[in-house]
């Protein structure tokens, strides 16, 4: 955006991306995986993960940072899927039904999350994270103790032997990859899940459109300055809640898309890492805590997952131990989040100081004593 290209500024702005590129560029040949395999995997993983990552965009726009509370949406999606599987609804119908069931749950959870985050202004991210933990407890209470007890579950096949509570692993045979296969297109050696891509494309269109709405404009405004927005008559708290609600609903749909591709669901664990992977992907894609764009999502998903594909093999080739590669990619992803947060916080302070630097020195420093 700056008129002259400044390599140092570019590096500082894209440090996380550059590090990831370098590491992956090194690891891809070491892994010895074929290009075809890697590319096919990437096509699959873009379809699987991109939607979830998109759910983080709006809260960032509204200045609330990364919505780690998106796992609430993931939980809503899982509950939807449990119901859809229990009722034996097959294929895309099952996915759509799961979304319809998950929607009110996600809206409700999103509203709660928004209210909670409004009470924790300035530390939304850590609060959202803990809220995810807390709601995980509630989720367990519902799924492990209430389903089949208070909430009727018809199918004994998905309940635990004690008669209530959902099994540890839920087979999603009835909906497995139904969206991916709805319109699977073969191009050369690759199979593309076109229907999934179309859903993601639709979401992109929605986000672009949403940015141009009044609500989108209000979100941008409160994201930059809550005080000014409030005095201009924008209802800050309400807008923040709406941002979180939309994010939660999108995460709900994203989790359903994710799980239909996986084909089974670790009932009590599937959502635990959702926030982490989405956040890591977005930040690796060059987004910051205050600014994220659609390209960031795609770059991030590709880069992060490229690393996740090649790293275990690279570790095995280099150290004779695939585990090293696995630990390494986890470490790098966590570090990417930490680094992105640090760069953001550090730059925020640096900018504030630079903004005031103009006032310093006065005329005395300039030697302008009259």
């Amino acid at each position: 955006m700056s008129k002259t290209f400044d390599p140092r500024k570019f590096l500082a702005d894209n440090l996380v991306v550059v590090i990831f590129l370098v590491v992956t560029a090194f690891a891809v040949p070491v892994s010895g995986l074929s290009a075809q395999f890697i590319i096919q995997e990437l096509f699959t993983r873009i379809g699987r993960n991109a939607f979830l990552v998109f759910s983080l965009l709006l809260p960032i726009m509204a200045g609330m940072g990364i919505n780690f509370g998106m796992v609430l949406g993931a939980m809503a999606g899982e509950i939807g899927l449990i119901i859809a599987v229990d009722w034996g609804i097959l294929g895309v119908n099952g996915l759509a039904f799961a979304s319809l069931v998950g929607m009110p749950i996600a809206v409700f959870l999103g509203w709660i999350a928004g209210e909670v985050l409004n009470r924790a202004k300035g530390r939304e991210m850590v609060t959202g994270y803990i809220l995810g933990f807390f709601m995980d407890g509630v989720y367990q209470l519902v799924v492990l103790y209430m389903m089949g007890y208070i909430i009727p579950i018809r199918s004994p096949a998905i309940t635990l032997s004690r008669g209530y509570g959902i099994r540890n692993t839920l087979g999603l045979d009835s909906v497995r990859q139904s969206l991916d296969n709805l319109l699977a297109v073969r191009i050369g050696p690759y199979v593309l899940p076109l229907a999934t891509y179309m859903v993601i494309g639709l979401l992109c269109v929605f986000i672009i459109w949403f940015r141009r709405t009044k609500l989108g404009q209000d979100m941008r405004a409160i994201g930059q300055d809550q005080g000014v927005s409030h005095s201009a008559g924008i209802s800050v708290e309400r807008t923040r809640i709406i941002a979180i609600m939309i994010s939660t609903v999108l995460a709900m749909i994203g989790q359903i898309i994710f799980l239909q591709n996986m084909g089974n669901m670790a009932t009590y664990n599937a959502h635990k890492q959702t926030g982490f992977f989405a956040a890591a992907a977005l930040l690796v894609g060059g987004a910051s805590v205050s600014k994220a764009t659609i390209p960031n999502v795609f770059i991030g998903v590709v880069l992060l997952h490229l690393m996740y594909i090649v790293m275990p093999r690279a570790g095995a080739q280099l150290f004779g131990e695939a585990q090293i590669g696995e630990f390494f990619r986890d470490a790098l992803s966590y570090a990417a989040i930490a680094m992105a947060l640090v760069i953001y916080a550090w730059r925020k302070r640096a900018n504030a100081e630079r903004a005031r630097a103009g006032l310093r020195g006065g005329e005395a420093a300039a030697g302008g004593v009259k």
Partner: protein
Amino acid sequence: MSKLDPKAARRWAIRAVLAAVYLALAVILFVTGKGHTILVDNKADPAGAYPALKAAVVSIGRQKPMEFYPGDRDKFVVKGQRHRIRVKPLAPGAQEREVEFRLPLGQDMTLLSISKLMAGAEPWIEVFVAPTVQQMAAERAADDLANPLETFGNTGP
């Protein structure tokens, strides 16, 4: 809010309609997407009222046809309520039969007897109750959760 102006009233009407559409959509998805397992068997009546078919090719909807010999039982998984079954006995000169039927909405499994169907005996579709509760319990015990929470990082992206 004292009185709704027409604009607001219209909006509330639209919202109400949409809520109804939402519910209707759920119902339609359920009805058209509900999966049913049809156990097709080819058994003779123990009392001898009808015989089993010697050999027949059975297909339901556009699914792959299956061959049935006496005493066979196999299953088709279908989506939705209305289906068409085609039974084509392999005996030379035998009449092929194609019937449309409707499955009961709430049932996961139904038993369809082609021998009854071909013989014209009723009912050739019955609700099937799985007799294998114990068997399933044993199968599930292996999968019961030991402790679902200590596992970390076992869900790949």
